């Protein structure tokens, strides 16, 4: 019976979606799924998505060193064959640190997982999605981080996970001084289901409102090409692409973006792609499922109105 240990990142007493995706993926790898969280309030939610036991260390706010020692304790008790992390900022910070401590191999940012002859096999996009590598991790434990939106969240219908309290060493050399939310309320492109992105076709910074309005109406996050990030129209947290974030939302709407290879690398794995561009030859149309040749300043506001109308019904 292979045990799979999943790191659950919590926020305001809830498990983050990317962590739930990892938890759902874990059930396909082994029948004994256990989890770690820093908050026992999530035991019911963890159980609902398949965790039988929940290791809890009241570790407080995320700090790499304390959480590494907490996860080490959980791993010592659970003796997992595989440890999964959802690919959040903290998951990606913690997985390699824990791997080095446990002398374990890691596959990061994976979009497929399976056990093959008792070993973890994972597929991961490389060269920013220009190729896919399948790797095998032969260490025990084997570690992987999952790409946001790559695995479906599936309920297991179990009762609350049994809480196992553990203590973690709290001597972290690094200290968190403060958390700043420069754009409070703005959705991050990392985990968004829908992203509306703008490029140089917007002509100037003020016109980003055209994209923001649609994103707002459709409940999506705002993305951007590097050209407009470099121009200072929007913060680089929004940049999609090879040197920005690689995203795979359900729906990606590109407005006034030409589709340079470095941009395509960051969004081609989106499930549905709509592109609006006035140049019929723009490379973005090669990856778009629905391409609209026309003026974004007319089409995007019209679409925003249509979306608002639908939602009013």
């Amino acid at each position: 019976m292979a045990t799979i240990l999943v790191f659950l990142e919590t926020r305001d007493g809830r498990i983050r979606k990317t962590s739930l995706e990892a938890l759902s993926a874990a059930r396909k790898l082994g029948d004994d799924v256990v989890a770690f969280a820093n908050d026992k309030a999530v035991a019911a939610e963890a159980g609902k998505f398949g965790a039988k036991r929940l290791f809890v260390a009241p570790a407080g706010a995320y700090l790499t060193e304390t959480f590494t020692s907490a996860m080490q304790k959980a791993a010592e008790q659970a003796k997992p064959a595989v440890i999964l992390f959802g690919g959040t900022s903290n998951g990606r910070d913690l997985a390699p640190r824990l791997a080095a401590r446990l002398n374990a191999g890691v596959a990061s940012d994976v979009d497929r997982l399976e056990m093959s002859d008792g070993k973890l096999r994972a597929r991961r996009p490389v060269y920013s999605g220009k190729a896919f590598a399948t790797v095998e991790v032969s260490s025990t434990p084997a570690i992987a981080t999952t790409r946001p939106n790559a695995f479906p969240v599936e309920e297991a219908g179990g009762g609350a996970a049994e809480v196992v309290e553990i203590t973690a060493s709290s001597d972290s050399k690094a200290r968190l001084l403060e958390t700043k939310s420069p754009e409070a309320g703005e959705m991050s492109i990392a985990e968004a289901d829908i992203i509306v992105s703008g490029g140089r076709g917007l002509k100037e910074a003020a016109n980003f409102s055209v994209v923001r309005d649609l994103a707002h109406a459709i409940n999506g996050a705002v993305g951007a090409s590097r050209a407009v990030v470099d121009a200072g129209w929007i913060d680089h947290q929004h940049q999609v692409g090879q040197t920005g974030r690689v995203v795979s939302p359900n729906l990606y709407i590109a407005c006034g973006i030409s589709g340079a290879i470095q941009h395509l690398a960051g969004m081609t794995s989106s499930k549905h792609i709509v592109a609006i561009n006035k140049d019929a030859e723009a490379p973005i149309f090669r990856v778009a499922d629905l391409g609209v040749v026309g003026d974004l300043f007319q089409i995007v506001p019209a679409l925003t109105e249509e979306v608002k109308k639908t939602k009013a019904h």
Partner: protein
Amino acid sequence: MNSVVCIAQVPDTEARIKIAGDGKNIDETGLKFIVSPYDELALEAAIRLKEAQGGDVTVISFGPDRVQQALRECLARGATKAIHIKGDATPDSLVIAKALAASIKNVPHDLVFFGKQGVGTDNSLVGPMVAELLGYPQVNVVTHLEVADGKAIAHREIEGAEEVIEAPLPAVITAQKGMNEPRYASLKGIMAAKKIAIDTQTPAEAATPSVTFVKLELPPEKSGGRKIDGSDPAAAAKEILKYIREEAKAL
């Protein structure tokens, strides 16, 4: 203030990727290699610290002989020393991290810099692994850095927010866009770099990899979907909405 900067040499971001005959690696023939873009930010941060506070900037790269080219470029930009650890490219980041950590121990340093990710491998693993192996605090995905009084104050990018983290030196920093604007090499720098010998090393202990390539494949060609004329914006908007609702099943 002495810094070490770990440099990954990666295929040019414009490059088309071809699969080698073994079906596991990329075909390197004719491929242009560059210093990974995030490592340029890391190097720039280290050079600025050296300019302000003195000390050395040592660049280290693990890989085949071609990585010496990347090291030369870093020397031309202002690094003062370079170490090449010989080894074949490997999918096991821990093998790379162990070789780097062993070498870094022999170099005086207050800070160890990385890129937040090697563009291409896209792992984001090596920096935190080295931090753990050396027992240092780490601040990952840093957009702003100040170093004073034996401490680093670093802004770390997380989803939709930024954390301000204080770490005593020595510490590991991984660089994210926004940290600085990397400089180009000057002619003088290129000339000066030629006089610096690259210290070539072989890994002290050869770690056995536990991550291996099974297969490398290209993504299926996107068939290129439907293209419609948007000269009637209202009609186009309706068509997009239909697609969003019926095919993307959103809204």
